[in-house]
């Protein structure tokens, strides 16, 4: 084998072992390798380097046990960061809907006995039927489609517009609440 051939092919051996050479050059190198044992051995060694490295390190069963044990603290850390699908409010995540004032009121009234709540609810329903609202509503002007007769804007309802039935129910529930509080205070001394 001509030494000049080896010198010419030597720089191509590494890319050849990686499979990075174009087909024409690779065919030339292969032709040389068939004749030159020295270069063929170099290619085998070059390939062996990578295959050895890919096979190292080998994990034993003890390593796998350790890996499983190591994953538990990570899962615990994840749970701490994301309690019950919440966590540190990632960007873009949908937020929990805000509670309405009515929901807040219901939460506040939860400790109140159920029969009182019933009376309050009946009073509230009657009030709602009469159009009376517990929450101040910002009124907007009526937008009337062109060509249709506009219904005159109803005047804002005052407290006196609440029907008598609703008032009596609310008053009764308030009286019961007062009595319960007094009795509680007496019982507690």
């Amino acid at each position: 084998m001509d030494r000049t051939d080896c010198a010419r092919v030597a720089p191509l051996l590494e890319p050849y072992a990686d499979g990075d050479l174009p087909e024409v050059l690779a065919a030339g190198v292969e032709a040389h390798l068939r004749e030159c044992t020295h270069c063929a051995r170099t290619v085998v060694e070059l390939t062996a380097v990578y295959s050895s490295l890919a096979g190292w390190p080998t994990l034993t069963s003890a390593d796998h046990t350790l890996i499983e044990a190591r994953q538990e603290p990570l899962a615990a850390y994840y749970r701490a960061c994301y309690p019950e699908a919440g966590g540190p409010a990632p960007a873009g995540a949908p937020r929990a809907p805000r509670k309405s004032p009515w929901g807040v009121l219901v939460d506040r009234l939860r400790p109140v006995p159920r029969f009182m709540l019933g009376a309050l609810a009946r009073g509230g329903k009657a009030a709602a039927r009469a159009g009376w609202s517990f929450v101040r509503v910002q009124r907007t002007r009526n937008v009337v489609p062109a060509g249709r007769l506009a219904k005159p804007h109803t005047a804002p309802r005052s407290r006196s517009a609440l029907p008598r039935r609703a008032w009596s129910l609310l008053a009764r529930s308030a009286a019961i609440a007062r009595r319960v509080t007094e009795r509680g205070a007496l019982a507690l001394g």
Partner: protein
Amino acid sequence: MSVSEPVLPDRDLVLLCRDGAENAYRALLDRHYVYVLKLCWRMTGVRDEAMDLTQEVFTRLITSLPRLQPQPSLRPWLRRVALNLCLSALSARRRIGQAEVCVNGQDGDGEFGARDRVDQVAQAVMARERLSRVAAAMQSLSPVQRAVVILKAVDGLSHGHIARILDLPQGTVKSHLSRARTRLRHATSGGE
């Protein structure tokens, strides 16, 4: 995970993780933990240090979840974080002056010694010797050379891809690879 269950891509698992699905996070651990561990082990040469670095990588995954761009595969992100951590750890080690080399790839536990005694097959011993030589030779490389060789040999990345990951010119990657490979070749062929 059973075979019948659908295999979700990493992108979906990351999105599920953001919603607090612990199973999705565990699935990511199952999928990538060993890869990251082996990468860190190859880089540092020490199992325990590699374990600690792997924990750090997956802790960073949790803290980075809200900012993480969901990609089809999480592996490039994990690889980059793991390599950066390993390079920092190796430079810190060099600063401190530690020069421990774990030649046989293990940390010298008695259990592994016993295992070696049991291993009587000549071929297996030769393969093991070769691996230990590779491990020792890897430790003689510079951290960047080590990273380049691992990315090329194990992950099969192109020179350009490696250059982008390590933020190096492509020519530098090639020269690092060539030098490292020559050294490793001498090591694996028995130092002749």
